[in-house]
């Protein structure tokens, strides 16, 4: 795939799979790169239906990622009917044909925000940043938030995010 820019940068030496060719139309140098084809992508949507259609936050670019991936696991804040999904006011639909599995995971983006559901959990993010400074500091974080909670509901309880009724 051709990309703009990049020619003459150190990408040429750091990424041997990026090649510079002559653009047959203009005669200028153009960089071409191999496409990214994920084996599996994980996306988190606002809502999904049972056909695998997922309503996504357009800024996440999931509508680009999903069709490019061999398999897509879509988690969503809510699972709704097909009719309700079509009527929701906001979101970019990723059609179910690209989606392998749908999982109901309310609070799945925590500590990052989901539009109209929950905000950024700033104290938690600061806690994470501190913990991530070293392996020793990270171990308690991992234990507390990843390894100890028995399930997702346990995680939500621990971070103080109430799942919707």
């Amino acid at each position, binding site marked *: 795939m051709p990309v*703009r*820019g990049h020619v*003459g*940068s*150190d*990408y040429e030496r750091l990424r041997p799979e990026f090649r510079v060719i002559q653009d047959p139309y203009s005669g200028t140098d153009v960089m071409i790169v191999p496409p990214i084809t994920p084996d599996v992508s994980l996306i988190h949507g606002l809502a999904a239906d049972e056909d695998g259609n997922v309503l996504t936050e*357009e800024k996440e670019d999931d509508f680009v990622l999903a069709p490019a991936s061999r398999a897509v696991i879509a988690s969503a804040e809510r699972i709704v009917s097909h009719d309700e999904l079509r009527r929701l006011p906001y979101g*970019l639909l990723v059609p179910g044909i690209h989606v392998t599995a749908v999982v109901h995971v309310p609070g799945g983006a925590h500590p990052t925000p989901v539009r109209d559901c929950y905000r950024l959990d700033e104290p938690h993010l600061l806690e994470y940043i501190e913990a991530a400074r070293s392996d020793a500091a990270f171990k308690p974080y991992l234990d507390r938030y990843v390894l100890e909670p028995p399930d997702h509901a346990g995680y939500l309880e621990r971070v103080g995010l109430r799942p919707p009724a």
Partner: protein
Amino acid sequence: MMADPDARSRPAGAGDAGYTTTEEFMAAAIAREVRDGEQAAVGTISPIPAAGVLLAYWSHAPRVRPIIINSDEWWPFRLGSKEFYEFAQKGRLDLFFLSGGQIDRWGNLNTITVGDHERPKLRLPGGAGSAMLYYWAKRVVVFRMEHSPKIFVERVDCVTSPGTSPPSVTRPGGPQVVITPLCVFGFHEEERALRVESLHPGVSPEDLRARTGFPLAVSASTPVTPAPTPEQLELLRTRVRPALARIYPVFARSAFPVA
């Protein structure tokens, strides 16, 4: 009145009219570079350029279209960053802002590794879209919130985004100025290099030389960067601050005093 260029911003104080934070000074310097009518975009982790563009929009450049990533109100696209990148590649982006872990005399930006790439001293966040946007935004303002010889070097360890390109490469745009807490550099087209345009108030030529890793043509007759006007400070503190807080809540709290 210029804040200590060594200090990061001080805690928000209540309406001290004679006091300007470094962030406010730089936002005003950036605003000065924004031309009316431009499609002016601000990328990730760029609160000062966002403040500068909004300040310009609400003062001398009312026909600017601010495009600020991670905001809802300043985002005109509906198909993600893909649409934004394609907009730039169509040649529609007039102004953009970039930074670098290292920035060299030739306008090259390094956002990948400092030191040997295989065993780096410092691993930076990566190029993101900069190696395309540096070529395709018609004018790029490079900004950096610190100014030291480790940042402003003779030549970067890794050229993530080069300052200029040969004629065989399609490149409609590039660096215009580089703004730091000490000075404004202009990008000299023929020399293809940074040249000091102005020193900020209170910064001497010796200070600048001591903090810059490449030779400088700077003297006592180098112009002084204008300080923000009272009107600009008022706008920053009353209008820009709350708008910025919706995108950068933590930054906005500390960088701009409450009016």
